[in-house]
């Protein structure tokens, strides 16, 4: 999907947006609700697309939009504290103004290949953030999709994000199962213990579905191997790539990998497309 930027304004120029709500999810992840200063959503997007968030004079960084486009009035971003921009964002209060531009990148094919299919979402840690936009889109258009399985893992139960969704909202929906796991045994956790890739194998899914994966690169790598072992074809699996980005519009050259620009041609790739790329992700 191409950028819907205003025709005459340069795509690098952000607009002012305001933080309407802040929810601390874990000790390093916070979810920000963002809208225009006068209210309403900053721009329309599709599930999986990203936005460039600006906090002058620290800089800009690209984040996946965590909320579904079916959310009419605002956008949400679940942001892990891990660098200069995110550190600064975590220090902001409700009412603080930031810069925003987008939407950037392609999206998960919710209106094409995913329609009518059984879906298997596989997330690790903050990797649930982009998947959540797809899951909520599917939930809001429930009749258009088949069975939904969500496998989500984190280091500890305290690192699980969007707890209201994973414990309450999603499991209560028809034909929807949520399978949670944490890396190690811990007091008070009576759910599954183990890494996501091995949990996938234990759950033993049938292969008549489309898988969407997002998480740390090492998890993605082993999940892909696991899915292939149980019979998934590369054409049935979607994931996202993450490379350093600055412009967000396929020009500054940073996220170039092979003949693709992750910010423009990605971040969503089907795994047979990834196979064509040099191993630099």
């Amino acid at each position, binding site marked *: 999907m191409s*950028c819907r930027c205003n025709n005459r304004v340069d795509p*690098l*120029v952000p607009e002012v947006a305001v933080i309407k709500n802040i929810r601390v999810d874990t000790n390093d992840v916070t979810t920000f609700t963002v809208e225009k200063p006068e209210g309403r959503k900053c721009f329309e997007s599709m599930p999986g697309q990203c936005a460039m968030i600006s906090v002058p004079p620290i800089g800009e960084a690209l984040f996946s939009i965590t909320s579904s486009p079916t959310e009419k009035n605002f956008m949400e971003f679940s942001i892990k504290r891990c660098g200069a921009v995110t550190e600064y964002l975590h220090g902001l209060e409700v*009412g603080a*103004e930031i810069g925003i531009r987008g939407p950037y990148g392609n999206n998960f094919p919710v209106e094409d290949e995913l329609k009518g299919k059984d879906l298997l979402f596989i997330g690790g840690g903050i990797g649930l953030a982009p998947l959540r936009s797809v899951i909520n889109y599917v939930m809001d258009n429930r009749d258009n999709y088949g069975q939904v399985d969500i496998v989500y893992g984190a280091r500890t139960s305290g690192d699980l994000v969007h707890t209201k969704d994973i414990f309450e909202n999603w499991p209560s929906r028809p034909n929807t199962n949520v399978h949670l796991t944490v890396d190690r045994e811990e007091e008070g956790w009576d759910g599954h213990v183990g890494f996501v890739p091995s949990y996938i194998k234990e759950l033993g899914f049938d292969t008549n579905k489309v898988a969407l994966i997002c998480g740390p690169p090492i998890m993605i790598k082993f999940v892909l191997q696991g899915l292939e072992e149980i019979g998934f074809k590369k054409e049935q699996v979607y994931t996202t790539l993450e490379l*350093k980005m600055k412009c967000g519009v396929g020009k500054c050259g*940073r996220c170039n990998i092979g003949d693709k620009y992750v910010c423009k041609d990605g971040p969503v790739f089907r795994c047979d497309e990834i196979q064509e790329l040099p191993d630099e992700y």
Partner: protein
Amino acid sequence: MKKVAKNKFSQLWNSINKDYELFLPIEKDGKVNFSLWKDEDKINLDAIKTNVSPKNIIFPQSETYLKFKTDGKKLSLENVGGKKEEYVLFGVRPCDAVSFNLIDNVFLREPIDRFYEERRNKGTVVSMACLEPEETCFCSSFGIEPETAPKGVDVFTWDIGQTILWEAQTEKGNILTEKLGDIFEEVTEQDINELEKLKHSIKDKVSSLPLSDVDPKKIDGDLKDIFESEVWDEISKSCLGCGSCTYVCPTCHCYDIQDFDGGKCGERFRCWDSCMFSDFTRMAHGNPRTSQKERFRQRFMHKLVYYPNNHQVYACVGCGRCIEKCPVNMNIVKVIKKLGGEK
């Protein structure tokens, strides 16, 4: 076609300067570079390769495009990018003129880079044939003929001794020509004969240049096979990662975006960057290119494989600046030859 006598150059510059900013190859401290002309400047129209390419006129090395102010929780943003003045860029060599088209392919595709677009639209490019191509020139490897006007230039000129021949190529070129009016004389049959001789002479010189046999088409095969070629280990070994090649290169267009912190107010600018630098791809969670070999490979894969896949043309124009500037004598010609199978 028209002509203008060289003894009228001073008048020419002043006439252009009435309606336009004028950028010319200016010699300063022994180096020739394109810069804004002032009356006392020493113009050098004979230098084939300016020290750095004229890329900085259409894509400035550093460009402030946003001013911001913070006041408590309030943030105000002001768009200050782009170029407002019409300008003439005079004396661009055909290779450098072609490089503009290559950058256009990236910056003018959707979503259009409006700052760049404005700078391109405001500019009238006057290009010059290369009378004396140099040993490090290999533009013919990329189909460039330095005796004829490449696509995209607004005016093309030929130096035939006491005069230069002037031929407008586009509407912008016609407008400039019209504005200059009386300064031109009509060409004679003798001038046309001179021009034909000159074109032949340039052609001959180009075909006998030492690098005229460089052929990027010899690099063929699958993208991943070229990427994984063992050649990269050997040819990247000497690279210091200094980035000189990327800064003098007319086609390199990678950039960085940075904020200048001035307390409650500040500026956002973009500036040239280099894929040869170690932090170019560094992220909070790691770096996909940790070795100089990987960064070196990225630069040449981009010019010779990735860019051509996307735009059906190589991202090199054979200007040869990288050959002259690399401190360890590595350059794209050696890369093309090695990847093309030469031992």
